[in-house]
C-alpha cells in the first residue's frame, strides 16, 4: 500500500509559514499577549470580594436570585481554596478567546447565512475544527507563538469558534421569510435589514452560540496548560503530574464552578431576549 506522507507535507507547510510570515505571527502574538494581560490586570486588580459581588449581582439580575446566590457561594469557595488568581488567569484567557471567536465568528456566520456556496465550503471546515483532537492544534500553535498563554488562546479560538459561526448562520436563516419580505417591502437597504431585523431576531440563537463557545473554551483550559498557558489548567496539570489528587480535584472544581457561572449567565441572556 502506498504511504502518502501527509504528515511530511503538513510539516513542510508549517515550516514555510514560520519562515515567511514570522513578522505576521509576531504581530498577532503581541496583540494577543496585550489583550490577555489587559484582561488579567483588570480581573486581578479588582479586589476578590468586589469581583464576587459583581458576578453575583449580574447573575442575580439576568438569571434570578438562586443563580445569584449560587454564583456568590461558588466564587467564594474558589477563593477559599486559594485558587482565585489562577481562576482570574483562566478567565482572562477564556475572555480573550471568546472575544476573538465572536469578532471572527459572527461576521463569518452572517456571510455564511447569505451564501449557500460559502455554507457548503465552511461546513466541513467547521466540523474539522471542532472534532480534530484539540491536542493537535497545540503543536503548530507552539511553532508560531512559542510557549505561554498566546498559543493556548489561539488553539482555544480554533476549537471554540465553530458554534458561534454555525449558530449565527442558523439564527439568521431562521428569520421568517415574511418578516424579511415585510422589511424589504418598506424599502430597507440590506444593512438596515441586517441590523434592524435579522440580527435582532437571530440574537437568541447567536447567544446560544456564545454560550457554547464559552463552554468549549473552558474545556480547553487543561489542554492549553500543557503549553504553558497557566491558570487553573496548570493547577490541574500539577495535580496529575505530581499525583496530588486533592490539588487536581480543587483545580477541576474551580473550572466547573467558573463554567457553570458563565453558562447560567449567558444562557439566560438569550432567553431574556427571546
Amino acid at each position: 500500500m502506498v504511504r502518502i506522507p501527509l504528515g511530511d507535507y503538513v510539516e513542510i507547510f508549517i515550516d514555510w509559514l514560520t519562515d515567511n510570515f514570522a513578522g505576521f505571527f509576531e504581530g498577532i502574538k503581541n496583540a494577543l499577549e496585550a489583550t490577555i494581560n489587559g484582561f488579567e490586570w483588570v480581573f486581578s486588580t479588582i479586589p476578590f470580594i468586589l469581583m464576587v459581588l459583581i458576578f453575583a449581582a449580574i447573575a442575580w439580575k439576568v438569571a434570578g436570585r438562586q443563580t445569584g446566590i449560587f454564583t456568590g457561594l461558588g466564587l467564594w469557595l474558589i477563593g477559599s481554596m486559594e485558587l482565585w488568581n489562577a481562576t482570574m488567569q483562566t478567565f482572562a484567557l477564556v475572555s480573550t478567546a471568546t472575544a476573538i471567536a465572536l469578532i471572527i465568528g459572527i461576521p463569518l456566520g452572517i456571510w455564511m447565512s447569505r451564501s449557500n456556496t460559502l455554507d457548503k465550503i465552511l461546513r466541513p471546515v467547521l466540523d474539522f475544527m471542532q472534532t480534530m483532537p484539540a491536542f493537535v492544534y497545540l503543536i503548530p500553535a507552539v511553532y508560531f507563538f512559542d510557549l505561554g498563554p498566546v498559543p493556548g488562546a489561539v488553539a482555544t479560538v480554533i476549537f471554540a469558534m465553530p458554534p458561534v459561526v454555525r449558530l449565527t448562520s442558523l439564527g439568521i436563516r431562521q428569520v421568517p421569510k415574511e418578516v424579511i419580505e415585510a422589511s424589504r417591502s418598506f424599502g430597507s437597504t440590506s444593512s438596515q435589514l441586517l441590523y434592524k431585523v435579522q440580527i435582532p431576531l437571530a440574537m437568541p440563537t447567536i447567544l446560544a452560540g456564545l454560550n457554547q463557545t464559552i463552554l468549549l473554551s473552558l474545556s480547553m483550559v487543561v489542554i492549553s496548560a500543557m503549553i504553558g498557558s497557566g491558570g487553573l489548567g496548570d493547577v490541574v496539570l500539577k495535580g496529575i503530574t505530581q499525583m496530588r489528587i486533592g490539588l487536581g480535584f480543587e483545580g477541576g472544581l474551580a473550572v466547573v464552578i467558573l463554567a457553570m457561572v458563565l453558562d447560567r449567565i449567558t444562557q439566560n441572556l438569550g432567553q431574556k431576549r427571546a
Partner: protein
Amino acid sequence: MSKVEVKNVYKIFGPTPQNILPLLEKGTTKNEILKKTGHSVGVNNASFSVEQGEMFVVMGLSGSGKSTLIRCLNRLIEPTAGQVLIDGQDIVGCDKNTLIEIRRKKMAMVFQNFALLPHRTIIDNVAFGLEIQGKNQEERKEKAQQALELVGLKGYEESMPTELSGGMQQRVGLARALATDADILLMDEAFSALDPLIRKEMQDELLSLQVKMQKTIIFITHDLDEALKIGDRIAIMKDGVIVQIGTPEEILENPANEYVREFVQDVNRARVVTAASIMKRADTLVSSKEGVRVAVRKMKEESISSIFVVNKERQLEGIITIDDATEQIKNRKENIEKILNRDVQTVSPDTLIEELIPMVLNSRYPLVVVDENRKVLGIIFKASVLAGIIGEEDSDG
C-alpha cells in the same frame, strides 16, 4: 394616468426563464412547460390597471400565481418580463436606489401572517417604515400614534406583538402600512389567517377606512365572498393567467368561461346583485299631464291594474289604480291628483337584493328604482327579485 399599470408581466421560476417566454407566447400550457422543462410558471402575461382610490382584488385559488403577482408589483419577486408602472414610472427597469425610494414612499404592504417584528413593541413596529426612511424619533412617534388610533389600537403602544390576538396583530400590520402615507396598499391575503368573525369585522373596517382615505388598494384573496364584498373590481386568476377582470356584478352576470362560472355558482347572489341588474324597464308610465283617460287606456292595453305616474322630467309622482281611475271617469270628475297614491316604495339602483326582499314582500305595489333626482329608472316586481336570486333574470333590464 392610472395609479398602477401592469403590462404583460411574466414570472417564470427556473434556471433559464428567458427561454421559456417564447413557449408561453405560443400558448404552451403551464403543465406542459413544467413537464418538459422543469420551469414553473408563476404569472403568465398579466395586464391590468388600477385607478387612484380603487380597491382592486386579485382572486385565485392557491397556486394560481396571485401572491407571485402582487410581489412583482414591488419587486419582492423580480418579474421575468413586462412592465409595472407606478404613477407612470416603470419599476421593473429601475435601479436599486429608485426601487428603494418607491418602496418607501409609494407603496406599503400588509402580509397574511402579519410579519411583525417580535422583538419590538407595537408602536415601534408601526413606526418601522418611518424608521427605515430615516425620519426622526418625534415624527415617527407622532405618525405611528395616529396610525394606531386609526385602526383602533390606542393604548397598546407598549405591548409586544405576541401579547395581541391575531386580529389585533393584523391591525398593527395595517397601521404599519398606513403610517408611511403611501398611496398604494398591497394586501396579500391580509385577512385569510383570521377567524371568520374577525375577518368580517376587518373587511368592514377596511371599507370604512377606505372611504376616509381613498388609497389605491390591491388586495389578494382566495375567498370569493371577500373579493365580491370589498372589490370595486376583481381579477380572477388561474394557473398564472388573469381569466377575467370586472366588477363583482359583471363577473357574476357574465362569467368569462366555465372556470369562472363554476367558481361563482355558489355565491350568495342576494349579497352581490343590485336592483339595477334585475329591474324591468319602466315602459308603461303615465305623465300627470296626460290625464286619467290615457292612464286607463294604457292599463287596459297592458292588462295591468295600476300604473306609475311621473311628471314631464320622468320624476316619480305616485301610483294610481284602475279601479280609482274608472270610478272617476264614471263620475266625470277626472282629476289625477285626487286618486294619486304618493306612498310608493322607492329604491336606489345599487340596493342589494338582500335588502330588496323585505321591501318587496311588504309592499302592495312593485318597487320603483329611482336615481337621486327621483327620476324613474326601472321597476322591480316580486318575480324579478326571485329570478335575480337564482340568476335567471332576462337581460332587458
